[in-house]
């Protein structure tokens, strides 16, 4: 088919939160964006922890709390520092009306977003893999699927963390194993009332666990638990280089963390109804790819927009999709799809909290890579040792207990080590808070 007959305004590659947010935004302005999704339905290839965020989701779907398929409103956030067999848990419980996120089942939620996009006028083409972008005179002019070529004024790349399309046009280099986390997860079916009892929540209320240490002591990785209506999602993400030549298998780490004495009772007698895996881009600000060019913009995970310090991803995906959508509408109104016009997307992202937050944490992963064997091991264990000491009743005078704890602390890490760690943390905090 010729370029003229097979041409549309906007093609969006990928039906996840970023691509669908872009689609909804553009469709509401009266255009007919085409979303190409490789799965049998939007959501069928998508995996996360996880949570969607009220603030970001409302920006795109103002009444989603009434209409979207939600699981539970997360009212409690627990931070569990797991030793080999012990743990220290810090917990924050919101006033339920101030809760900021919901757990969702992606196969339902993404599908719902796709239906909303269709209602607004977008076209969702499923079961279609985009093989490559079509380039003409350094401009992206369309896509090639398994069957056909399609042309568009703008292609929005929302093809996820692996983004082969960004790579094709040189927007990103090969991701290095240290800049990506492999996440594995199980969804475990449990009766709704058992979940309520075990997590001390009411119907429709949810609880999140962030898991530090445990099977990932001394490794750069974190675990998580989310509560769904009648299931629990438990998983972990580990930096891929931790698995490089080490003999450690990701699902074995998952099994080990599931059997930790602090967590095992939470999932006891549950039936695993789905196992899944997914990559999370964790390179942060310093590893961001090029975000726009002639006829093209990159959104969501494809643009590596993840704030791993705060477990945020879907919100950055949705809002980057919205901003790309607004930029596309502006470009269509000007009939100008040059890289200069589309660089408005970069500028708007920079103005938003998305780039500000990524910039704030730009040094985080460097410090963590450098210090993981200490921060993710020694200090986690010491937190637990402290509480073990503090709660012990063993006939040893308390002053002796304190002094032994402090002496061991200094001896084991060494003064140089402690000074070096303190300096790293101070520098990191300075870069987060000051400049």
């Amino acid at each position: 088919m010729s370029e003229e007959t097979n041409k549309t305004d906007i093609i969006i590659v990928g039906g996840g939160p970023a691509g669908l947010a872009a689609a909804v935004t553009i469709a509401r302005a009266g255009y007919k964006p085409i979303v190409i999704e490789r799965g049998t339905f939007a959501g069928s290839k998508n995996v996360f922890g996880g949570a969607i965020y009220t603030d970001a989701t409302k920006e795109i779907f103002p009444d989603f709390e009434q209409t979207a398929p939600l699981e539970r409103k997360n009212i409690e956030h627990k931070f569990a520092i797991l030793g080999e067999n012990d743990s220290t848990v810090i917990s924050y419980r919101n006033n339920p009306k101030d809760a900021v996120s919901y757990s969702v089942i992606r196969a339902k939620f993404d599908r719902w977003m796709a239906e909303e996009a269709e209602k607004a006028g977008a076209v969702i083409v499923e079961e279609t893999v985009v093989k490559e972008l079509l380039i003409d005179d350094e401009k992206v002019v369309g896509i090639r699927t398994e069957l056909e070529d399609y042309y568009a004024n703008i292609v929005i790349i929302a093809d996820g963390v692996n983004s082969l399309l960004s790579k094709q046009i040189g927007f990103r280099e090969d991701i290095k194993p240290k800049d990506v986390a492999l996440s594995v997860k199980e969804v475990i079916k449990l009766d709704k009332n058992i979940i309520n009892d075990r997590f001390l929540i009411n119907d429709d209320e949810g609880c999140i666990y962030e898991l530090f240490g445990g099977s990932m002591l001394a490794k750069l990785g974190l675990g998580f638990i989310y509560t769904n209506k009648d299931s629990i999602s438990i998983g972990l993400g580990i930096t891929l280089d931790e698995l490089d030549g080490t003999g450690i298998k990701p699902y074995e780490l998952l099994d080990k963390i599931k059997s930790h004495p602090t967590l095992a009772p939470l999932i006891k007698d549950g039936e695993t109804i789905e196992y899944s895996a997914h990559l999370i881009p964790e390179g942060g600000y310093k590893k961001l790819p090029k975000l726009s060019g002639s006829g093209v913009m990159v959104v969501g995970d494809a643009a590596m927009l993840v704030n791993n310090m705060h477990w945020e991803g879907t919100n950055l995906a949705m809002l980057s999709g919205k901003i790309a959508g607004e930029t596309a509408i502006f470009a269509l109104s000007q009939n100008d799809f040059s890289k200069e016009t589309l660089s408005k997307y970069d500028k708007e992202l920079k103005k938003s909290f998305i780039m500000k937050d990524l910039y704030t944490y730009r040094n985080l992963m460097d410090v963590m890579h450098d210090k993981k064997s200490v921060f993710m091991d020694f200090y986690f264990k010491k937190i637990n040792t402290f509480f073990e000491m503090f709660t012990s009743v063993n006939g040893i005078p308390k002053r002796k207990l304190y002094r032994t704890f402090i002496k061991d602390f200094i001896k084991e890490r060494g003064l140089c080590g402690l000074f070096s760690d303190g300096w790293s943390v101070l520098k990191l905090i300075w870069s987060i808070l000051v400049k």
Partner: protein
Amino acid sequence: MNLDKKLSTLKYTPDENSHLKPTQEDCVSCKTRSCINACPAGVYEWLENENKLLVKYENCLECGACRIICAKHSLNWEYPKGTKGVTFKKG
């Protein structure tokens, strides 16, 4: 819970041809073969007798870990065809 049991929770529509194509001569000389450990679905297995990498692509979760961890950068990694591969019912 062993891996086979985990994978049995998934719905797969396998293709006739593999979407994962390692460059076997690179695998022979590869010192780490990190794909074997890293793959969350145990897709890769080294066949000592045949001196080649076995690819059980039907079990692939399409995460891309093997592509990134491949020390030789020579794993030809594509998505399965539009109607094929894994379908997550939860995600």
